[in-house]
């Protein structure tokens, strides 16, 4: 049962989580698991309606910064155990990620990344072009310069993950309100006192901003300026086919990614450098474009010519919440007690969400420092010395 509420909100809560996507639900679940009573999740639309439900469902530990590698690796462990933890089928499948490039100039960075990932215990290997056909037999490798493969990476069904976490939240006494927007975050003397919603006020000492592309707008309500900007990214699904594609294939060269869902569909997208970026939610435009479908089809057939006769069923778009270094913003803000960020995932919130929620919940409840959260705090942008992750695809 998912008794999601559209009724009046409670007058008080121990913690309010803004956003009913993977990050908000994971954080709420972990907060409740650590003993917080009366945790409230506020979702302005329906569960998973933001970036989570529009994403490709990929989970990979192949990154170039230690924080991303560790968060993703820990999340992979959580995805492996998620069906048991939540008592819910999330369709997690570890077919691996095959990351390809056509450019010699990427090879040194890819070898460095493999070494860094191996040092963290991630079993990535470097492959010569011909070796890729051992993983995807019909892949056109004629233009490839090299690839990396990690067999532990995989995919899950994003909606099932949010439903599973929502049910688990409700079992622990979390209240989830859908169709409920936050209109203000209220503070007094450097301390969070609650939120205003379009169903009434909630007094709470803790507010967690998990609003994804809307997080910048939410933070501004309480005077916190985020450097995030928002980009439209498009994605599509094909008709269902017999199982033929084990891994997610992604290209550092042109930004395409595609995998096969457990329903048999090819699910994939491609980044577009011509896309505008926005900072005001009023500008967000998630309409689909023919340009995307054409660019995706060309890129797909360049790698997988056998798909020429496969039909594309539908396409849609979602928003990335992009930070200057493509890494999330976690932790609090000095001088504003009780306010926390879990945002800025730059297109990778689904894969990093479970572990981020777990670490952040522990940090919020116990007050103990966390090395990953510290290195991903908002203040890292003050010094201008951030290290960007190089493997942003899609």
């Amino acid at each position, binding site marked *: *049962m*998912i*008794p*999601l509420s559209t009724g009046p909100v409670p007058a008080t809560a121990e913690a309010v989580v803004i956003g009913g996507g993977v990050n908000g639900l994971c954080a709420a679940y972990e907060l409740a698991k650590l003993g917080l009573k009366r945790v409230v999740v506020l979702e302005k639309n*329906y*569960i*998973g*309606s933001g970036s989570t*439900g529009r994403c490709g469902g990929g989970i990979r530990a192949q990154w170039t910064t230690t924080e991303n590698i560790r968060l993703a690796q820990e999340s992979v462990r959580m995805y492996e155990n998620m069906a048991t933890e939540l008592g819910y089928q999330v369709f997690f499948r570890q077919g691996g990620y095959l990351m390809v490039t056509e450019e010699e100039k990427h090879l040194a960075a890819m070898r460095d990344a493999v070494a860094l990932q191996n040092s963290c215990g991630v079993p990535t290997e470097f492959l010569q072009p011909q070796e890729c056909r051992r993983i995807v037999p019909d892949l056109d490798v004629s233009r490839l310069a090299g690839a990396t493969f990690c067999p532990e990476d995989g995919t899950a069904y994003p*909606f099932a993950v949010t*439903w599973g976490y929502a049910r688990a939240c409700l079992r622990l006494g979390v209240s989830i309100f*859908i169709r409920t927007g936050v209109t203000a975050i209220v503070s007094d003397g450097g301390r969070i006192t609650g939120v205003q919603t379009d169903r009434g006020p909630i007094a709470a000492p803790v507010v967690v901003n998990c609003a994804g592309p809307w997080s910048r707008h939410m933070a501004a309500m309480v005077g916190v300026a985020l450097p995030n*900007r928002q980009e439209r990214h498009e994605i599509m699904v*094909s*008709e269902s086919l017999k199982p033929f594609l084990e891994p997610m294939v992604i290209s550092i060269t042109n930004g395409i990614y595609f995998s096969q869902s457990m329903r048999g569909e090819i699910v994939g997208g491609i980044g*577009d*450098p*011509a*896309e*505008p*970026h926005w900072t005001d939610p009023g500008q967000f435009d998630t309409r*689909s*474009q*023919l*340009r995307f*479908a*054409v*660019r*995706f*089809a*060309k890129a*797909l*057939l360049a790698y997988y010519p056998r*798909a*020429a*006769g*496969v*039909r*594309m*069923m*539908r*396409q*849609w778009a979602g928003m990335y919440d*992009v*930070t*200057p270094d*493509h890494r999330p913003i976690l932790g609090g803000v000095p001088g504003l007690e009780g306010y926390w960020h879990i945002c800025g995932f730059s297109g990778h919130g689904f894969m990093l969400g479970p572990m981020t929620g777990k670490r952040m919940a522990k940090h919020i409840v116990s007050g103990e420092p966390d090395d990953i959260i510290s290195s991903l705090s908002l203040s890292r942008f003050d010094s201008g010395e951030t290290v960007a992750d190089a493997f942003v695809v899609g």
Partner: protein
Amino acid sequence: MSKGKIFLCRCEDVTLHEFRAAYREGFTEIESLKRYTGVSTGFCQGKGCLAESALELARLRGAEPGTVRPTNIRPPAEPLTFGQLAALDVPAPAAAPAQEKP
């Protein structure tokens, strides 16, 4: 005809019974019902079942017909092959501002 075998979505074999059971499970939004039951995601992309799904949801809510909008329509109107799509050429919109990637 058995009452348990009234098909709401013939492409994806979703029965009326399954649709109602999903509603009772807590999937009370048309977009969530689509993603949970698979209704309207098959070959006709909802042409045969979207209106009936919205109508049934209104009935389940005890609301007037027409108060539930169907799900967002996704292009293309008819499925197209990747070969057909790849043969097209669509330039970047002229209005798109010059971009630097972050």
